């Protein structure tokens, strides 16, 4: 089955599933999967910190990196994923040219991600972040393959 992740959202899946998200821009695209249990998920988080709008974060934690990442991990564990086997890959967080504060969101999203992973003792297996690219991500849960295009 093909799942599409909208902005500020996440989807998890199992063997046979593909999870896609379009036009990440400065948003963080994070995948977490367990290659043995063949379960995984994809998060598309827009903003770094939930404290900027706690009400929104409560209604939908996936809008923010600091609340969305733990939610993604939790859902993957709920499907049978094991922390010791978890493979985590980051993409998105682009840094378009410009002086506007808006353009720095990608960098902040990435910084908050690294802090949360450090707290949770998790390393990134790969990262494809930054630059001006507006990435689209396709994650094959059966194989763990991640294809990033822009």
């Amino acid at each position, binding site marked *: 089955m093909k799942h599409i992740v909208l902005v500020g959202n996440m989807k998890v899946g199992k063997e046979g599933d593909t999870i896609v998200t379009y036009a990440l821009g400065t948003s963080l695209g994070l995948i977490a999967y367990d290659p043995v249990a063949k379960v995984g998920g994809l998060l598309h988080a827009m903003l770094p910190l939930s404290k900027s709008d706690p009400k929104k974060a409560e209604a939908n934690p996936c809008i923010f990196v600091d609340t969305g990442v733990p939610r993604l991990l939790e859902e993957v564990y709920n499907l049978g994923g094991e922390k*010791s086997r978890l493979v985590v890959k980051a993409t998105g967080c682009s840094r378009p040219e410009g002086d506007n504060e808006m353009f720095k969101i990608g960098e902040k999203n990435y910084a908050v991600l*690294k802090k949360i992973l*450090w707290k949770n*003792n*998790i*390393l*990134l297996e790969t*990262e494809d972040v930054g630059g001006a690219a507006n990435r689209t991500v396709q994650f094959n849960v059966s194989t763990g393959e991640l294809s990033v295009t822009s």
Partner: protein
Amino acid sequence: MAINILIVDDSAVMRAMILKSLRMTGLDIGETYQAGNGQEGLEALNDNWVDMVIVDINMPVMNGEEMIGQMRENPATADIPIVVISTEGSEARLERLREKGAAFIHKPFTPETIRDTMRTMLHLEEND
């Protein structure tokens, strides 16, 4: 096989961060030892079986470069793989350390850099 690691840095916070990063790598880490300067580092090498040394450069009493020099002169420690983690910017000094076979990681480091360096070093060991 589990690898025993000696971490030498004058900052206890830095030693804790390096240790945490090592634990995050998923590599088979055995005993870990810590020292606050090069002199203590050499003593720790004398007292323990160590498979890899992670060492800072700028430290009181004895700096990392001197410790590495003494390690290389002692047959018991001459072949132990060394990773230097430092803010050091002097290309000449880095070149001298590379000549002594040390890998280099710049501070501030990410845990991923430590993992990747460890992977490379352990892989090289396997192929020896």
